[in-house]
């Protein structure tokens, strides 16, 4: 017996589905389900053709949420559909700020567990199993859902390719949001876009991250400068995010972002397991650290045992001179 229906929670950025949403749709197509349906918190009229091309036969959209945070609104709409008899076997979410809220609220509403931080999924008959990496990415744990439909699972970015399947636009279906009561009270009053000149951290081809070895917050500018020269994105270890040098959005690691760039440069980062799980999937890793025993060197393709305050300025100089 195969799965009947898979729901994929789709997020939008600048009026387009996010790459992670398209990765999940593409993966859903390979799982042999009868039907794939996209769930959109917001207006989906502009993206139905793209979602269809990536495999969504239907696009269930709430319409404009009027500034409400999507978590409770979308979860309530999904739970109402499920209560009405429209029960998917599986719901796929990206591991994002928004989707975490939706999945968590939904898990309570339908009293089902949600498995997070996954990097793979397999379907055997109507059994669904997901795999997550733990202990710095050294150990893979595969877990099977055992409580019936729907199985709720969240996935890290860049584990699946995003490829069009060539189908027609998804059929738009209204997903009604029930009255949310007091729980629906959180409202967005303003949106601030921080200036990013380069690519997004989890989509960049090159990532340059700094850690405690930089010594002080001001020295992080070297990381930003090097990232800019390489047309990459700057990242950070948890230690310097905790210290308040850079915002949480810069954090690479188990808590934070998982990145899989072509080149990852770790400067002044020792390589705690917390950090390694977030960057071990990079194709090429360059590490600069004073301590030759630092664990980061065990995964580096090129390791420089040296002082970041000496190596980075020379590296920046050399790249500028080109």
């Amino acid at each position: 017996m195969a799965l009947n229906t898979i729901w994929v929670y789709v997020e939008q950025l600048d009026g387009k589905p996010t790459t992670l949403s398209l990765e999940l749709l593409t993966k859903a197509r390979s799982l042999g389900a009868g039907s794939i349906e996209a769930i959109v918190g917001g207006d989906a009229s502009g993206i139905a053709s793209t979602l269809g091309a990536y495999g969504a036969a239907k696009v269930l959209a709430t319409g404009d949420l009027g500034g409400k945070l999507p978590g409770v609104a979308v979860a309530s709409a999904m739970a109402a559909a499920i209560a009405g008899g429209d029960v998917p076997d599986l719901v796929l979410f990206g591991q994002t700020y928004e989707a975490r809220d939706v999945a968590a609220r939904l898990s309570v509403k339908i009293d089902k567990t949600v498995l997070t931080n996954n990097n793979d999924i397999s379907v055997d008959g109507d059994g669904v199993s997901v795999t997550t990496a733990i202990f710095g990415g050294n150990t893979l744990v595969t877990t099977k859902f055992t409580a019936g439909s729907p199985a709720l699972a969240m996935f890290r970015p860049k584990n699946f390719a995003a490829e069009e399947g060539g189908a027609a636009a998804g059929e738009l279906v209204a997903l009604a949001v029930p009255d949310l009561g007091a729980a629906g009270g959180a409202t967005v009053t303003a949106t601030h876009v921080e200036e990013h000149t380069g690519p997004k951290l989890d989509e960049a081809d090159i990532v340059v991250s700094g850690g405690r070895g930089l010594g002080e917050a001001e020295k992080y500018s070297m990381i930003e400068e090097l990232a800019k020269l390489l047309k990459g994105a700057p990242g950070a270890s948890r230690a310097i995010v905790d210290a308040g040098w850079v915002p949480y959005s810069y954090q690479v690691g188990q808590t934070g972002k998982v990145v899989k760039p072509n080149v990852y440069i770790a400067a002044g980062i020792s390589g705690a397991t917390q950090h390694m799980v977030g960057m071990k999937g990079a194709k090429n890793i360059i590490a600069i650290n004073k301590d030759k025993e630092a664990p980061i060197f065990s995964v580096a393709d090129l390791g420089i045992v040296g002082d970041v305050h000496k190596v980075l300025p020379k590296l920046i100089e050399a790249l500028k001179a080109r």
Partner: protein
Amino acid sequence: MNVVVCVKQIPDPATPGALDPSTNTLKREGKLILDDSDAYGVEMALQLVTAAGGGEVSLVSMAPNGETSGLRTALAMGAAKAVLVSDPDLKGSDALTTAKALAKAIERVGDADLVIAGTESTDGYTGTVPEQIAELLGRPSITFAKHVEISGTTVKVQRQTELGYDEVECSLPAVISVTAGVVEPRYPSFKGIMAAKSKPVDTVTAADLGVTPAGWAAAGQEIVSVGAAEARAAGEVIEDDGEGFAKIVSFLETLKVV
């Protein structure tokens, strides 16, 4: 203003983690410490209560074996009291069951204007518990707060987004999760550490809270395999002799990224 902070006591992250071979769940034995991620919530709560000019900070936590050493750290920072859920039947609980126990513990504290949690724990990092607690309590929630202020009966938050941040607000009572670095956690003073020893910790079981322990077997999931990930081969490691940068440049050249 009364604030309840959800705190987790975890094995020291500096020591390598291990799985219990019989259940394949994380081993959480022996001395546990306050999760660094939760120190921000405790500090935030203390600052908000001080700014409000009255009220107190309470803690809720769930841990095996009646473990309180991490709770004492948060009490030493200035929290007034704690409810600790500790019950062998809760061992191996999933995030949803954990949220159910903590939500009941928050109700046991009573009268919380605001509930604060970290965004995710350092050891399990499921990252769903704060929002699940909000749903169980029927309250509005704002996750990933990087700045928090209270204005009357409204909580105003700068919420981290993919592109920057949103200003989000909702009425109290509410639940928020705070990111690392949102405030600078204070170090417990000697006086605080001494005072913490006599602060009340109400230790309760699942039955005391009216929660049905799901335990691992009933959590709707079963671990079917645990295996080693493909290891990365170590590459070339060289001492910087002043020309280390040139090695990096030539490596980048071979990768055709410069």
